[in-house]
């Protein structure tokens, strides 16, 4: 009778030890498996998204970088302002570029003071209405318009333009990457419709014969 009692005792001790150790190891392994599954799903989703957007992302990148460049876009904006003033039959009397300041963390801004004159108020209103329609994006400050002695109109306003450095690093490869939300797509559509600045590409001229170089 002593042997079965001893066997029962030993089995009980082994069972307690097995349950304790075995259970903790199995639950740990299950957690690791669930984590691996979760990471695999994230990677799979990310890969699917990248394959989906691969063909269309280039145009979106161009539109957004022109709307909010990574460097001070004062020259682009001044070019756009001059173009719009000419389109509306206005004369641009002066343009003043102020010092840059920080609009928000990671976004810089600069104010461009604009003075324009035209014969009709409607021309000035048309010019002012066109300011939110071109890239780079801008916001218009206070506007003052005065009627001159000759019946013409003079207006001055401050147009603020913005730029921001590019993101320095990519997120970790196993971090979730989501597609654009509906709100983001609305902003993207708006940005894509902005009039882009015109860039002139100067080609270097090749060698050519010149018979009288001193004339």
């Amino acid at each position: 009778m002593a042997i079965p009692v001893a066997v029962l005792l030993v089995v009980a001790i082994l069972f307690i030890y097995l349950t304790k150790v075995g259970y903790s190891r199995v639950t740990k392994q299950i957690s690791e498996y669930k984590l691996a599954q979760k990471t695999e799903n994230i990677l799979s989703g990310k890969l699917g998204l990248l394959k989906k957007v691969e063909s269309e992302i280039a145009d979106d990148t161009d539109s957004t970088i022109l709307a909010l460049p990574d460097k001070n876009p004062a020259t682009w904006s001044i070019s756009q302002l001059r173009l719009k003033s000419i389109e509306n039959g206005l004369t641009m009397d002066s343009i003043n570029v102020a010092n840059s300041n920080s609009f928000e963390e990671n976004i810089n801004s600069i104010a461009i003071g604009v003075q324009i004159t035209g014969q009709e108020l409607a021309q000035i209103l048309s010019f002012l209405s066109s300011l939110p329609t071109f890239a780079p994006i801008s916001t218009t400050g206070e506007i003052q318009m005065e009627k001159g002695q000759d019946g013409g109109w003079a207006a001055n306003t401050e147009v603020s333009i913005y730029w921001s450095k590019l993101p320095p690093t990519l997120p970790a490869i196993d971090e979730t990457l989501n597609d654009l939300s509906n709100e983001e797509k609305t902003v993207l559509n708006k940005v894509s419709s902005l009039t882009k600045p015109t860039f002139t590409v100067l080609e270097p001229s090749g060698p050519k014969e010149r018979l009288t170089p001193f004339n």
Partner: protein
Amino acid sequence: MARINLLPQELKPKGYVLKLSKTLNKLALISIAILLAAAFVFLGSFIFFSQQTKASLGRQESLKSEIRALEATEQKLILVKDRIQKIGKVLNVENTTEELGVLKQIVEILPEGVSFNSVGISDSSVELEVTAPNLLSIGQFFLSIVNSQGFQKVTVTGFSYKLETGYVVGLIFF
């Protein structure tokens, strides 16, 4: 051959002791079986989930290498999301776009004979000065403003008469 028990009858174990001994033997065997079954279940589960985890890690490596091949696309998508987020902040800045729309409304209801002298637009109001040759034109203008119902609040800031220009009225539209 007959079985002969040489032990004296007084030393024979009692009935209940024999029964208990048999029960304990059975219990011991059953407990060993349960222990072995439990060990098998734990070991089997551990090996199964361990294999599954290894397979998942293998698939992850394959996915990661495909994602690395599309790094340029990922950079562009991150850039687009970054730009859109910042552009959204800029577009939410208070500016004079809405008030420009108010001015256009005013231009549409301006009656014949009434003309602007000056216009000032801020991010919350439109301030203007108009000239009219007579009170009738001023009245028509005020009536048009009231009937349009497109303005939250209109305040008259000045009312004067000049011989050269006529009636001069200052207004602020909110």
